[in-house]
């Protein structure tokens, strides 16, 4: 019956058989082997197993594995193709990240050409924001005590109110010192900006009907990333013969 020994002792015995113990560990183990028959028996059995394993014949190759020029060249071509596709995928991914980041930073300006898209270009937004102080003044100078309230009565300046509801807020500083004539001027600016916005949108729609350029670019890059990455993976999975 095989004696039960600890994993640590098993490791020591195995290393002892391969002469892989330090002098100190070897001496300690040899002392224990004299006084512990179970340990000695375990070592004898392990030695027998090791000897059996070492008697296992080395197999002879059933055929020659020498490489032909064709094998190597085909394989190198495949490797090069996989590398190129992987590089293409990485470059496309980087470009895609840059385009998306740029698009986000510009407030989705790329969507301007998309029919029904509500986002305005920075230029238009700036023009509209310039008009906000005057609107605040029309709505009532007392509102300056509540700077975050941007509600504008629609019966006063309906068109500007419509723009403001989508565009943002006015600060208290903006409202100080403005008078009614300034407000009229601001409404003119608002109308002008709105007109420009509509004209720009119409131009964009004419250039790329239906789909904005930025979405096309992003879609194309994403397709390249996926296709090249998948292609590289498939080529790499091809077993060389």
């Amino acid at each position: 019956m095989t004696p039960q020994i600890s994993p640590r002792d098993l490791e020591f015995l195995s290393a002892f058989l391969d002469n892989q113990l330090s002098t100190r560990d070897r001496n300690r183990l040899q002392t224990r082997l004299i006084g512990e028959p179970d340990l000695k028996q375990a070592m004898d059995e392990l030695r027998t197993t090791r000897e059996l394993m070492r008697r296992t014949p080395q197999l002879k190759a059933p055929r020659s594995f020498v490489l032909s020029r064709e094998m190597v060249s085909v394989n190198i071509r495949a490797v090069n193709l996989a590398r190129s596709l992987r590089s293409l995928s990485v470059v496309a991914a980087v470009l895609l990240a840059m385009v998306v980041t740029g698009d986000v930073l510009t407030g989705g300006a790329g969507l301007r050409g998309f029919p029904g898209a509500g986002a305005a270009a920075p230029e238009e937004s700036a023009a509209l924001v310039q008009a906000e102080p005057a609107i605040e003044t029309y709505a009532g100078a007392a509102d300056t005590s509540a700077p975050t309230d941007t509600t504008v009565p629609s019966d006063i300046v309906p068109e500007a109110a419509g723009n403001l509801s989508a565009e943002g807020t006015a600060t208290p500083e903006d409202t100080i010192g403005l008078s009614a004539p300034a407000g009229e001027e601001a409404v003119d600016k608002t109308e002008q900006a709105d007109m420009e916005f509509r004209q720009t949108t119409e131009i964009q729609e004419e250039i790329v009907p239906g789909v904005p350029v930025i979405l096309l670019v992003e879609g194309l890059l994403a397709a390249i990333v996926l296709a090249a990455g998948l292609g590289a993976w498939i080529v790499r999975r091809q077993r060389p013969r």
Partner: protein
Amino acid sequence: MDEIQMIEFARTGDLDAFNRLVLAYQDAAYSTAYRLMGDRVAAEDVTQDAFISAYRNLSSYRGGSFKAWLLRIVMNAGYDELRRNKRRPTTPLEPDGLDGEDLDEPAWLRDPGETPEESAMRAELNRAIQTCLDGLEVEFRVVVVLVDIQGMDYREAAESIRSPLGTVKSRLARARSRMQECLKGFRELLPAGLRLETEGIP
């Protein structure tokens, strides 16, 4: 031309020089692959893949034991193949080769100088060991193949599997212990002087 020169020539694209290395190590490579895979066809595929991979990656060989470097590639190719086949049912261990040939003792392995009894004994030992190897987890199988069958020292084995020396030591001890338990089931097939005691048998 010595081994270092052959490697240098092969690095410059000299396929003939590399093929000399192939001839020198193909038995060791195939034997390792067979012990790892437990299947002749899979072992051939792994060996061929490993040599192609070795030729392609010769620039990554940084000196030291070329055999250890090559067998590491064989092991990696074997790992890949085993992962691919993970969900495939285990191949039967019974020797039923093509044309009735015994896969554990095929004609190409027989030593013409052996008596039939010696040949049969060696075949039995071979079969018993392969059966027990197949029962080990891959990480244990690899170590025992490298050290006890290929005769590598611990350092070479550690280099081959890119693991610390301590890992090789502990895995080898556990693998030997598991092999010991398994081989007891083949007691009658083993050489008389190397029969392991089993419980209940004096």
